[in-house]
């Protein structure tokens, strides 16, 4: 039975209006079920920690925990700093500094990697502060303990899938796409930093 084409009726309008109302309401009701999975207030409140750097001798490292993540703190030797400075930016797989203290587009020079964004960078360039999570798939790279494999560039080496980081925590070889991230931190005294 061929139906004649007719003008939309009031019933058509009501059907579409009711359907749209139900769809929007359904989508809105879904949001609490999705958002409940996001980090909750107690996770967000674990904001800052303070770390005393004075017990760390030159050439050694410590790992502290911040927001459930390992933070690598390495007291770099002058040779390590020189090695990191000698690298040209165009040799780096990831040319960006990945330092949360400075501009997002800064180049991954050694100074930009250790910068707290406060202008006293050169004074503290012996301290390398990093989030110790491989940017590939989240393993903790080796290189913090004496005797650990440090990789081909003497920084850190991720054993999971073979990423090599240099002494400024920059990715040099392997599947990781980005340099190790530098967290927000500042020097609150000569030998003390606040992370977060």
């Amino acid at each position: 039975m061929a139906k004649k084409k007719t003008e939309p009726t009031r019933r058509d309008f009501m059907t579409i209006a009711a359907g749209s109302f139900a769809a929007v309401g359904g989508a809105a009701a879904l949001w609490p079920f999705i958002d409940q999975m996001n980090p909750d207030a107690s996770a967000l409140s674990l904001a800052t920690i303070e770390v005393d750097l004075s017990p760390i001798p030159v050439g050694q490292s410590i790992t502290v925990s911040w927001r459930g993540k390992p933070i690598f703190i390495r007291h770099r030797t002058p040779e390590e700093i020189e090695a990191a400075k000698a690298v040209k930016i165009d040799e780096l797989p990831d040319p960006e500094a990945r330092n949360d203290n400075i501009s997002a587009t800064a180049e991954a020079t050694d100074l930009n990697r250790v910068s707290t964004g406060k202008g006293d960078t050169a004074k503290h360039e012996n301290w390398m502060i990093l989030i110790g999570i491989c940017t590939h798939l989240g393993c903790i790279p080796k290189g913090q303990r004496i005797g650990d494999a440090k990789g081909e560039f003497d920084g850190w080496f991720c054993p999971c899938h073979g990423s090599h980081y240099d002494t400024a925590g920059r990715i040099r070889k392997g599947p990781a796409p980005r340099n190790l991230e530098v967290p927000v931190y500042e020097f609150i005294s000569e030998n003390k930093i606040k992370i977060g």
Partner: protein
Amino acid sequence: MAHVSTYKPNSAIEKWMDDRLPVMRMMHDQFNDFPTPRNLNYLWTFGGILTFCLAVQMATGIVLAMHYVPQETMAFDSVEHIMRDVNFGWLLRYIHFNGASLFFLAVYIHIARGMYYGSYKAPREVLWIIGVLIFLAMMATAFMGYSLVWGQMSFWAVTVITNLFSSLDSIIPGLGTTVVEWIWGGFSVGGPTLTRLFSLHYLLPFVIAGLVILHIWALHVPGSNNPTGIDIKSKSDAISFNPYYTVKDGFAMSMFVILFAAFVFYAPNFMGHPDNYIEADPLVTPPHIVPEWYFLPYYAILRAIPSKLLGVVAMFGSIGLLLFLPWLDTSKVRSARYRPIFKWFLLLFFVNAVALGYLGAKPPEGAFLIWGRICTAYYFVFLLVIMPVVGWIEKPAAMPGSITDDVLGKKPVPAK
């Protein structure tokens, strides 16, 4: 569904029930007097074995959940509590733990059977697709279950796998990180992650059970495929499911249970990793992370590709492509038995899959990495190139006229 009902109610009660909810009629027609090809070999017993595996996992899982504590500081200890203190806890956990491995062993054989005999081809495409969805749900369930032990391997497996989603950062910066933190419920894998994995680990088996019902439904519309790939043409091609295949399935299942019991009682940790008996430590990654054996081929594909995003895409794509198998294969002939060229490529595909599994357990360097790339390439070339092309150029071998002819050894009919 596919045949005329032969159910006859024997009593007034059965008659009364049949007029209201004909569940007895359904059971009779689908699992008693269901016409089934007379020539099914033992590879066709894995459907029943898999149903058994699902039932065992659900039964043991429900009771294990009565003793397990899905909480960051107590999860690992509660598993040890199950092993040491709970009556028969060691047995229930070892059944559940080894049951997962045997479930996958059976499902891989079941999938390979389907591929060899062309069980994915018309009119069984929907049956096949539901099967792939069950496989995906199984993988998700197994992964989540493994995480609940909260040992070192559990913890780092969760870290590595959830971090796969951070590769979305290379499409839209920040998207991947947002998704990963949403999955974690924090800034790293922790207590909130564990609780949600437990919740979903409990849920998914029921989803699988629902999919299994659809899978069997979709199977019972066209009926079972068989080693010749030829449809049932006459009454002599088929026998009734019960007692013939209930007995055959039952015998195969008994053999399978013997293997199962051998693992549970004599080598319960053979398929596990000793590092998972160390409690999760978020600050130390074990030197060599490997997934459970049944994920190794996909892990090898992930690591074969140097780009993070493409590695993830390839890994999920390797399973996703299976959904399109009915259309990637262009041949009209179902069974590889009558496909002289395809058969060898397919057998090589199976060998290749095992090789990928071997490589997935090795460190990704040197020759292992090169072979990983070769095997990954073959996996995709087989599905995307060899399958369609061989279907076009191959001349099928002579096929028997019917299932009965094949069983009685009659001369095959040359292909037209």
